[in-house]
């Protein structure tokens, strides 16, 4: 009922409860601040250092499979300091040992609404009904920061309105984008929506919505690697749309980031050993490694290398751009479920966590979402 009131339409997926209100995770403030918040800020800065290096190196741009025609486009967006909205670092964290970075979802992270709004509302209700102590807190300033950041972005580009786009036929993505529209609206920005597939090109070379309004500024829940390679990719530079996330996120969201981080910050406590797959000879074959494509979504095309044997864990359409290897680090198990921490950043500020559970030690896309408290 409450869910319907707030337009939360996707709480089951393939028959699995995506959202489980009966259970929650509890952290101490020290765990949150020392093990998650501070490392999140630090990892993000390390990632930005890698981006800065990549945009200035043709060799690395090639390594990151950025199409040659778009090198300048991506590089310029970094040099212009085009503002980023948000990212989600996926962390393996067992509550005791240093959190390890699994991936950086810096371009199109989802489960934002569940985290920023729904989880927050859940705590308010639990406390009101006396199920959870009144002094309970939550690491979740996501919504507050999103509203503020969207306002900053509008100011950066000197605009009062912003388009928001996602693909057709996905209720989850539409929900995420609607949430950001609500946040933008709260920031005093006029929000408009267009489906990615409906974006048009005008005779003067601008991208347009279905009412022929130009996309001056547009948040897109659609991966940069797709946009760069599709037919309108050729018009990106001249169309002059202010994209959120900005084009340099093509580097930050790329899995080539992981071996680069390990090269630049070897043995950092929050990193897992990682290599480009053509450096596989540097990898000890009596350890377990996860092989992932440079670009992939939803945990697709992942293999486990165990003692030199490759076992396919998930199939998928990705991998043509190459693969990376990452030391196998199984998700910790609590109460029979494997737990993955999504640690959010808004711009460069840690902004909260979301917790997803899975029956498998390697996260797939059918993860249940759980709220958390700090006590």
């Amino acid at each position, binding site marked *: 009922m409450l869910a319907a*009131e*707030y*337009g939360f339409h996707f709480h089951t997926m*393939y028959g699995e409860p995506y959202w489980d209100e009966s259970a929650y995770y509890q952290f101490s403030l020290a765990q949150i601040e020392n093990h998650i918040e501070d490392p999140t800020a630090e990892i993000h800065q390390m990632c930005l250092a890698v981006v800065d290096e990549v945009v200035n190196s043709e060799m690395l741009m090639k390594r990151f499979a950025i199409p040659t025609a778009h090198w300048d486009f991506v590089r310029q967006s970094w040099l212009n300091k085009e503002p980023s909205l948000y990212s989600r670092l996926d962390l393996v964290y067992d509550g005791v040992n240093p959190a390890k970075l699994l*991936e950086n*979802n810096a371009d*199109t*992270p*989802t489960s934002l609404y569940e985290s920023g*709004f729904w989880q*927050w509302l859940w*705590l308010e209700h639990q406390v009101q009904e006396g199920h959870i102590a009144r002094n309970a*807190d*939550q*690491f*979740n*300033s*996501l919504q507050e920061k999103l509203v503020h950041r969207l306002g900053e972005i509008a100011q950066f580009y000197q605009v*009062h309105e912003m388009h928001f786009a996602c693909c057709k036929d*996905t*209720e*989850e*993505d539409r929900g*995420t984008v*609607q949430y950001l529209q*609500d946040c933008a609206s709260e920031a*005093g920005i*006029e929000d*408009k929506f267009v489906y*990615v*597939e409906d974006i*048009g*090109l*005008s*005779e003067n070379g*601008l991208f*347009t919505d279905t*009412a*022929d309004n*130009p996309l*001056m500024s547009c948040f897109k829940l*659609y*991966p940069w690697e*797709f*946009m760069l390679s*599709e*037919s309108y990719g050729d*018009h990106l530079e001249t169309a002059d749309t202010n994209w959120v996330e900005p084009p340099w996120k093509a580097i930050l*969201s790329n899995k080539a980031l992981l071996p680069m981080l390990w090269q630049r910050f070897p043995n950092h406590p929050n990193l897992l050993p990682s290599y480009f797959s053509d450096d596989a000879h540097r990898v000890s074959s009596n350890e377990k490694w996860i092989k992932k494509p440079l670009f992939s*979504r*939803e945990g*697709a095309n992942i293999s486990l290398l165990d003692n030199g044997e490759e076992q396919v864990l*998930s*199939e*998928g*359409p990705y991998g043509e751009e190459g693969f990376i290897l990452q030391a196998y680090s199984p998700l910790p198990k609590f109460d029979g479920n494997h737990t993955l921490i999504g640690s959010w950043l808004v711009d460069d500020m840690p902004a*909260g966590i979301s917790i997803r559970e899975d029956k498998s030690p390697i996260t*797939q*896309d*059918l993860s249940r979402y759980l709220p958390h408290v700090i006590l």
Partner: protein
Amino acid sequence: MATQKRSKHINLRRMRKAFALKPLAVGVAGVLLSACSDDRQDARIYTSLDECKIDNPDAIAQCDAAYQTALDEAARTSPRYTTENDCEHEFGANQCQYVNNNQGSFFMPFMAGFMVSQLLSPSRYYSQPLYTSYSPYSSYRSRWVTADGYVFDGDIRKRNYRVRPDAFKPKPTVTRTMSRGGFGSSVRAKSSWGSSSRSGSWGS
């Protein structure tokens, strides 16, 4: 307690989805309200043409025009429902009309008022239709709401607001859209592959 680590306040009204029952279509016209802008201008809500004329005896013609603009906008942008029941659930008994035109046939609420701004300005006035609800099931009950579901502060007795002028400015128009569909092909290619992908999301 140390510094709170969660959002201090969330505007729940904003997060409530516009319509309890999903209309077939909602318009995108809307007035933008902003609490932080100094250059907002006065806007006034009238519930009838006569009310406008009595309030503005020197602007009878402008009232006529503003009223007509609002009616035209209402016809174009008002929320639409397939059944009278759905519409009345949101707006109350006898608050909906049946419309059958070149956009299809559906039920839409009657315009309950219109908001005007700069009526006496020689250059241009602004006018838009507003709705209200008499339904006990609706979060719009006794409130002013725009075609796209923006709910104004206060109840329907409140008639004066300050609104941001740039919301009234005509948006830049492009000459003509020559093609569509140049983005999204990767989705078609990758999703034809099927498998366990979660409700087709392209997020991660």
